[in-house]
């Protein structure tokens, strides 16, 4: 997951694409350490723990849980990972640029 996500973020940095991490590891200091250790650069939401407000509202019961949204904010895929996630993202990026 993680190496692939990093590679995708790097490759698509000039494209209309954003990876947003909703993190359940704890407070800012804890998360900062993890981000530094793992060289994670993309935007994070500090959701606290697995009962955090975002995870609770979106009824997240398993981790990782992934939603892929198009440029209009419409949910287009759920729970795609790795190659399937990349395929979804590339298709939607092409759609966003085409439209």
């Amino acid at each position, binding site marked *: 997951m993680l*190496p692939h996500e990093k590679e995708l973020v790097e490759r698509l940095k000039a494209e*209309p694409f954003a990876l947003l991490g909703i993190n*359940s590891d704890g407070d800012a200091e804890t998360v900062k350490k993890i981000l530094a250790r793992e060289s994670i650069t993309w935007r994070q939401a500090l959701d606290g723990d697995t009962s955090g407000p975002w995870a609770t509202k*979106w009824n997240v019961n398993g981790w990782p849980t992934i939603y892929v949204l198009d440029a209009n904010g419409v949910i287009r895929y759920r729970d795609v990972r790795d190659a399937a996630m990349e395929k979804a993202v590339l298709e939607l990026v092409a759609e966003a640029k085409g439209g």
Partner: protein
Amino acid sequence: MRNRMRPPIGIGLVLGLLAVPASAQDVHKAQAVAGQSAPADFAKKLEALVQRYNDERSEVITAYQKATTDEERARILAGMPGAGYVPEFRALAQEARGTDTAAQAWIWVMRLSEEDKATAWQAVTTLLEEHMQSAVIAELTGELRYASYQHGEKPVIEALRAIVDESPHEKVRAGALFTLGAVLLESKEPTNKQEGRNCFEAVITEYGDQPYRGDSTYRKAAEGFLYELDHLQVGMVAPEFESVDENGVPWKLSDYRGKVVVVDFWGFW
């Protein structure tokens, strides 16, 4: 680079889900709830067996977390205790037949038989046939949440319906109806989805104030599923959400309109 401690799905299930019910304390609690007097030596045997399993598991997890290479991690995970404990739990279940300890032991047999469908389902069948009156069945309803990946949804749905209809315990019926809703919502059949919604609505009406997990109630938990059903399906505009990043900077999902967005709920914890 590749040292994410909590790898995707497979290991998450092993390290995460199994951790919840695996304490000897839970065994005590469930028996206290049941209010039946399982012969003390059976209960002690079960407790010792669970303890041994948990200790072995903790050792593997500790070693896993200390490992530095993928090869090492893979080797350590291969030593995770599991099916090797099934014969002991099954023997205890047969020895203690008819008691709540037997019911507990069958739940362990099911839990540890991920690779052995027939054994896992034999445990479920035995629980339904011999222990339907037991409060321990509450634990089975939780285990059945993910059983459709192994057994297909049909037998799991039938088992849950039977529990909803036949258990004398409100807590067990609440758990079964809730799990039934979750399994039905994941079904590919559109009619099942509608029925899943009905289950959650019934959970709210009939068992809303009952405790779910931690501080939560069945109402809150069921409302989560109904919200997901109404707002988080493919084709729907993702609902707005606001949070702060690690530097305290607030941001919201709609800030990213115009971009393709992957929302990734993650963590190492």
